[in-house]
């Protein structure tokens, strides 16, 4: 098969680039080895924490003056795909985390409540409602955090006969399985009624993010129906809003005519004269996929875009150059919660995001997203930002700005 561009990696970055290209009239295919890290999303997107200083070589520095313009494009872009984001283009807001703390972010999925950074208004009396027997939502931590911030909290739980089925299984009381039960219809109404019955004099209700795998309508319905402010707080993975976002992007991409090769893995490459000619995949075997341009958005270590061994850090598909500390003990910090240096390792690129092999940039292989070297996804809060903005940049570069 032949395409204008083949995108390897179907997560946030890969899908963003693929959609942009497809919208500009290119034919594209996405090779996605398993589901993406969007499944572990917080339901919010960070661009850069306030006060963070960009280290030298950060991917943003390669985007240059277009960065602000790209940031302003995020909301309209997702809106086209049916993912409604809110947030302010120019300043960060706060999200309430599953441990009752506040975390900076720029945008959020529409049902996720955002708070002003200076003085988050969490209400005076808060009712925290969990599903009976659901351990992936830590009500005690949320309550403790909010009480520190001055609220009074009460913890309750709801038990519906429909939940009994998943509870029967020792392992499957998971956010996604609850979300499936609460997709709509009678059970959702029953759930809403049960929560309403628990509200006494509270001005705010906190619920786990278990609403709306396919679209956000169940979450919005809950919000509208409770009669008091409703704040959704994330659960342990998998993330319901994250899965929804992934599914909506993919559905939109395919509706544009894009080819999404789910569960396939690029395994072979054909490079000649510093130009990638084709890739082969595990499933398609001898049927090589050809394209004019290739985007490498296979993610970092978790997603296997980067591989590591005691010998060092490599990019396993193309064998392109990586940037990392050669002295292994320097990869880590002893405190788990300190910034871990290995998280900044990644694929080296030139100023135009071309991957480099043996010191020479490849003419038509671009790297985008969390495979890039120089990020600081946790300390800088730039994880989603790098994924989306470098995808925009690469798509622009391929189409000469048509996207």
């Amino acid at each position, binding site marked *: 098969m032949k395409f204008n561009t083949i995108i390897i990696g179907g997560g946030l970055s890969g899908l963003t680039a693929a959609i942009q290209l497809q919208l500009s009239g290119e034919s594209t295919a996405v090779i996605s080895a*398993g589901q993406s890290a969007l499944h572990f999303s917080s339901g919010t997107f960070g661009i850069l924490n306030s006060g963070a200083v960009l280290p030298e070589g950060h991917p943003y520095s390669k985007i240059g003056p277009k960065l602000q313009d790209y940031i302003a494009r995020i909301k309209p872009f997702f809106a086209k795909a049916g993912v409604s984001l809110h947030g302010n283009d120019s300043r960060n807001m706060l999200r309430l985390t599953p441990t009752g703390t506040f975390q900076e972010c720029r945008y959020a999925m529409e049902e996720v409540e955002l708070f002003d950074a200076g003085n988050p208004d969490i209400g005076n009396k808060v009712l925290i409602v969990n599903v009976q027997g659901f351990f992936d939502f830590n009500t005690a931590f949320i309550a403790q955090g909010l009480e520190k911030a001055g609220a009074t909290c009460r913890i309750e739980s709801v038990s519906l006969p429909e939940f009994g089925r998943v509870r*029967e*299984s020792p*392992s*499957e009381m998971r956010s996604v399985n609850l979300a499936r039960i609460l997709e709509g219809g009678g059970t959702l109404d029953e759930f809403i009624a049960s929560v309403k019955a628990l509200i006494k004099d509270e001005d705010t209700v906190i619920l786990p993010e278990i609403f709306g795998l396919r679209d956000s309508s169940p979450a919005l319905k809950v919000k509208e129906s409770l009669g008091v402010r409703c704040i959704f707080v994330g659960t342990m993975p998998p993330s319901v809003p994250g899965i929804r976002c992934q599914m909506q992007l993919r559905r939109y991409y395919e509706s544009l005519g894009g080819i999404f090769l*789910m569960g396939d893995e690029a395994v072979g490459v054909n490079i000649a004269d510093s130009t990638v000619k084709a890739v082969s995949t595990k499933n398609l075997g001898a049927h090589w996929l050809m394209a004019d341009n290739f985007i490498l958005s296979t993610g970092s270590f978790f997603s296997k875009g980067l591989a590591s061994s005691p010998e060092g850090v490599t990019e396993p598909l193309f064998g392109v150059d990586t940037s990392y500390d050669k002295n292994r003990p320097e990869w880590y910090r002893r405190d788990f919660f300190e910034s871990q240096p290995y998280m900044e390792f990644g694929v080296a690129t030139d100023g135009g995001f071309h991957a480099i092999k043996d010191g020479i940039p490849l003419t038509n292989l671009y790297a985008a997203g969390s495979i890039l070297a120089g990020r600081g996804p946790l300390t800088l809060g730039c994880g989603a930002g790098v994924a989306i903005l470098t995808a925009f940049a690469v798509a622009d570069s391929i189409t000469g700005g048509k996207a």
Partner: protein
Amino acid sequence: MKLQEFTSSAHNFEECMKCTVCAAYCPVVQVNPRYPGPKQAGPDGERLRLKDPIFFDEALKYCLNCKRCEVACPSGVNVADIIQEARMKYGKSKPRLRDRILASTDVMGPLAVPFAPVVNFATGLGVTKAVLHATMGIDRHRTFPKYSSRTFEAWFRRNALKEQRKYDNRVAFFHGCYVNYNYPALGKDFVKIMNAIGYGVELLDKEQCCGVAMISNGMYDGAVKHARNNVSALSKAVDKGLKILTTSSTCTFTMRDEYPSLLKVDNSAVRDSILLATRFIYEQVESGAVKLAFKDGYKARIAYHTPCHMEKLGWGVFSKAILARIPGVEFTALDSNCCGISGTYGFKKENYGVSQAIGKPLFDHIASVNPDFVACDCETCKWQIEMSTGYKVLNPISVLAEALDLEKTARINGF
């Protein structure tokens, strides 16, 4: 060897990051609480079973072996293989008579075909269904696939064999049990298309059922026997330089992937030569070797369903491309969801409810699209969707045979 340069484990169970994505895509977890879920049944359970086989859980039998966990896994863990292999290694429950009958597609076929009208009449009767439900545990809601009164092989020998000698280019056809006993028309469509694009068709020397039904019913010894037989039959064709084409995604997947990974039958000599007919045709057209001419005025609204094993195979892209490029076709790719039948699984009365619940999202999607018909590359999905939605289901090869102007196609390809 460099130490720790890479790590490996049986079916990659150790690469599992415990991210739980597999559980999010398991169709069984959503409807059957007795099933421990792919993560628990697979990589988690494997560590416990290695400690002590006492940790084998018979509830692993609820796994459909649909492989959707493997498609979803970001870590490349062969979750379903781990589960199936554990069943093979530790399972104690023996298949029931009912399971044996359902699994033995190429034993029952030859018995039924000579009496097809009677068998079809009988299996269609409410009273028969009730008896089978009560005595055999075959759910009364199920419509038995009709048996054909003449096998595809018999038809081929009598009506097509001679014709095939005209072609210099040949392909071998693994027709599978369904084409042979239940729906020879699909085989005939396949032969027509191949002939039109300039290929003669050969049958294999002693084809047997691919064994998928035996695997899912726990009849592993039988499945291995079939696998060995088929690999040897396929080898003969490959030795002649032939590609082996199929019209069933499940047979294809089983012979390519389940033989080596589960049944430990080495198929390396033939694996890359086994192709779905849609992939073969796509590649011929793409390379310019073959041209297709379509009927004027063909019109159809087609919704394509990706069967589970097709999803795992990753070849839906070929069937979809072929259908979508037929002039006059309004094409919708349905969200990839399990239909719930999983071969013989849904035929068992204890599974009927689960089976239908699994399929519901797919059925709902079909209804909302409201196509002229559904296209899909799997025969058991066809039964399930037809029974559950009332929409007709056609194999893409049959759709193509209908849409093509076969004579014109033959002409422009020089035949």
